[in-house]
């Protein structure tokens, strides 16, 4: 029997930290919702509602639908191939295909716009090869809605790839063998057994794709696609009406919530829990020569489009410019300082929440839900919440207040990402160690510090890295809250790109991508080791 520790051994004051953590995270969200509902009906809102809202809504929906479709096409078949078959380069692609996650959407948008523009290398090569002039052919325009969806899918498909791959790996090989012994061909086994069983995992990955795509500001703005997030920043910047922006945020949140509910409903009663408990190394089927080359070509194409071409272009551009015309070092220092502060703040909140999960009190649940909703909410929306909170305080948004607000927004947005590795570290430790500590006479207080904390800290390095890099990549909130003339790498890249100075934007964009590679490589290293049922 498990003792309910919270029932009698945890006095109320021990719950205070987790309550505070939950409130700190929930506050901006609640403020946005309330202000959006209560006082959003100004002149700007009337204008937006009558002329822009429908465009924003349709734009966002189209981007989300196309991005989701592309991410599925990119992520699921490749995950299936690297999990179930042998073909040249399989082991390499297994982790290479995760790398595109490192570059934020706006960086990819800059690189692709540069690559695919009329003066870019792709079209130049086409003209050289064919002798056509620029007016003789059609070339896909990256500054378009499908272009935005393509760019977002390129950087976000790894979420689907990762979750699908994990699901394919962990599903019972026996189930697939049973299907084949019942006369199902390899392709029917995929469509009617493996895919339905992996569906919830794929849906979870897709939900991340949708959230990130909905939250994107930089790429949409740069490629000129009207989306809700784009509209939110614009309503705040051009019309100076945070309340109107909050109303738009409200629409966006409703949209995200709808996706979540629709998916839950569609899942229905069908089980997804594998009834199989026996694991065996997946016997990968050799694809043979022709099909193997096809698989290699598919993975190579995807990796080239999503990573090699755009990142290679950034490297090329940075080398070409040789640092001329780009000021990055001050921005780098600012980025490191700000992301460090935001990550530290988020880290403390994440640690408090992770430690409270064991206690299972209602406050812990509240804090966790707050953290995961914060993660789902676009940075632009959270920035609005922070602005609204500041407006009721006796301070003005200037200098260091803006930086504190930014650290706060980062913490709200990313705490969930930090909670996860630490909660996982705690979950890996047997439940009984807490009881063992208690039976040895440790007080709950000592148990927390002498047992739970050191255990959670084994996941701390990963958590800190993820938090730092996420904060480093963040653009819209940083743009809205930073002090005047105080740039981070993301803001600097954005500013150069907005001025059509892509060559100058390349270096900061590249630096962000390189920083982004660190946690992604850590992640791919971890997934290449962990496999249930693998040799223990």
């Amino acid at each position, binding site marked *: 029997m498990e003792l309910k520790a919270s029932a009698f051994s945890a006095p109320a004051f021990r719950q205070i930290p987790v309550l505070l953590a939950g409130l700190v995270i929930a506050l901006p969200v609640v403020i946005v919702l309330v202000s959006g509902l209560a006082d959003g009906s100004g002149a700007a809102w009337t204008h937006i509602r009558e002329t822009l809202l429908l465009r924003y809504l349709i734009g966002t929906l189209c981007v989300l639908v196309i991005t989701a479709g592309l991410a599925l096409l990119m992520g699921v078949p490749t995950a299936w191939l690297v999990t179930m078959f042998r073909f040249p380069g399989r082991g390499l692609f297994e982790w290479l295909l995760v790398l595109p996650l490192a570059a934020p959407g706006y960086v990819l948008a800059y690189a692709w716009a540069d690559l695919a523009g009329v003066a870019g290398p792709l079209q130049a090569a086409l003209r050289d090869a064919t002798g056509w002039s620029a007016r003789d052919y059609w070339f896909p325009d990256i500054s378009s809605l499908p272009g935005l969806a393509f760019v977002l899918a390129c950087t976000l498909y790894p979420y689907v790839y990762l979750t699908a791959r994990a699901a394919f790996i962990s599903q019972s090989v*026996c*189930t697939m*063998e*049973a299907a*084949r012994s019942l*006369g199902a061909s390899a392709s029917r086994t995929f469509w009617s057994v493996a895919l339905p069983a992996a*569906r919830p995992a794929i849906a979870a990955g897709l939900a991340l794709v949708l959230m990130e795509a909905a939250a994107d500001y930089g790429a949409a703005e740069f490629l000129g696609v009207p989306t809700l997030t784009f509209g939110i920043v614009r309503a705040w910047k051009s019309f100076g009406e945070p309340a109107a922006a909050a109303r738009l945020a409200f629409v966006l949140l409703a949209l995200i919530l709808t996706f979540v509910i629709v998916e839950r409903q569609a899942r229905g009663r069908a*089980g997804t829990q594998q*009834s*199989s408990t026996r694991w065996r190394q997946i016997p990968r089927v050799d694809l043979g020569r022709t099909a193997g080359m096809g698989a290699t070509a598919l993975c190579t194409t995807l990796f080239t489009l999503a990573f090699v071409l755009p990142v290679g272009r950034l490297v090329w551009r940075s080398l070409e410019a040789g640092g001329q015309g780009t000021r990055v070092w001050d921005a780098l220092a600012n980025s490191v300082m700000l992301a460090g502060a935001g990550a530290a703040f988020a880290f403390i909140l994440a640690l408090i929440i992770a430690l409270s999960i064991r206690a299972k009190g209602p406050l812990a649940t509240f804090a966790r839900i707050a953290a995961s909703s914060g993660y789902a909410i676009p940075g632009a929306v959270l920035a609005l919440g922070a602005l609204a909170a500041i407006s009721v305080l006796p301070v003005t948004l200037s200098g260091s207040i803006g930086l504190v607000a930014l650290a706060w927004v980062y913490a709200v947005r990313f705490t969930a990402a930090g909670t996860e590795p630490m909660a996982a570290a705690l979950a890996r430790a047997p439940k009984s160690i807490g009881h063992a500590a208690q039976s040895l006479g440790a007080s709950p207080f000592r148990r927390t510090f002498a047992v739970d904390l050191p255990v959670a800290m084994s996941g701390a390095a990963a958590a800190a890295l993820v938090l730092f890099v996420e904060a480093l990549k963040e653009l819209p909130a940083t743009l809205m809250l930073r002090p005047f003339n105080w740039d981070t790498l993301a803001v600097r890249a954005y500013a150069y790109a907005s001025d059509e100075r892509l060559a100058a934007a390349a270096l900061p964009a590249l630096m962000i991508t390189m920083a982004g590679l660190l946690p992604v490589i850590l992640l791919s290293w971890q997934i290449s080791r962990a496999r249930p049922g693998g040799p223990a």
Partner: protein
Amino acid sequence: MTANLDLTGVTRRYADRAVVDGVTLSLKPGEITALLGGSGAGKSTLLRLIAGLEPVDAGTIQLGNHTLSEPGRTLAPEKRRIGLIFQDFALFPHLTAARNVGFGLKHLPRDIAAQRIQHWIGMLGLSDRAEAYPHELSGGEQQRVAIARALAPEPDAILMDEPFSGLDPALSGSVREAALSAVRAANIPALMVTHDPAEALENADSIAILSHGRLLQCGAADDVYRRPSSLAAARALGSVNVLSGTAVPAEWRTLHGPEIGVRPEGVLLDAQAPVRVRVTSRRLTGPLVRLALEGPGFTLQSLVSHEAAPRTGTETGVRLDPALTFTFASE
């Protein structure tokens, strides 16, 4: 179609180590053969070879006169018409019990498939659970769905990998009964992998003993138990007392031979017998009592009824039941 499933010299190597080594075995329709062996004996690999999940490195697998596997040519599992039942059932979690059973019936017209599903669901007593999902079923129900699913396409043979080991012992008796009678009624060759000699003896018509990839012996259950071809085969089905050399009392040497193996229940207490022993320990094993007996230069284990079991320290005579005593040529 009811045809024999014939394995001839079937061999499978993993990196030069033969996990299945020259196995020749003939499975007859309507007969359940238990494939018995310890862990690592190659039982599951042999099963996978027959199912077509792995290729053979030597030998052939034939169903009637139709070759399923030979080196370099493996008929795909989905083309073999061989049913598989897994230890963990491997039900499709996203399909109801009825749709699990119907999974292998896609080639049939819808109404005929529905009838077939009804038939098998009813036969295994699952009619009221047809619309439940696997996670809503008990272990025994899941097992019966797995069996109905494997039998519904009317396969030409059926393979069962430790089919009852995942079940609660209290439950497995009744499930086993229902399952195996359905398998027998299908009148096809059936192979049941198990590591439990009692399960093999109780349920199978014949027993094949596998050890280190080699077939030690194969035959009717009764024959294999009473006339094992080797000490290893004898041990695979239960414990054996072994006496050899000078340890064998002279009376038994002339009666049985110079090397003797005898099952504990074949060691009979008989006050008049010339070979004398002393009871050194007496333990309950449930239905019977296990005695440790010490004679001049030898020790024996004996299983006797509670009524017949003497106290520790008692001196008595023993003789051996010829039906449970084996001699081995060279071991």
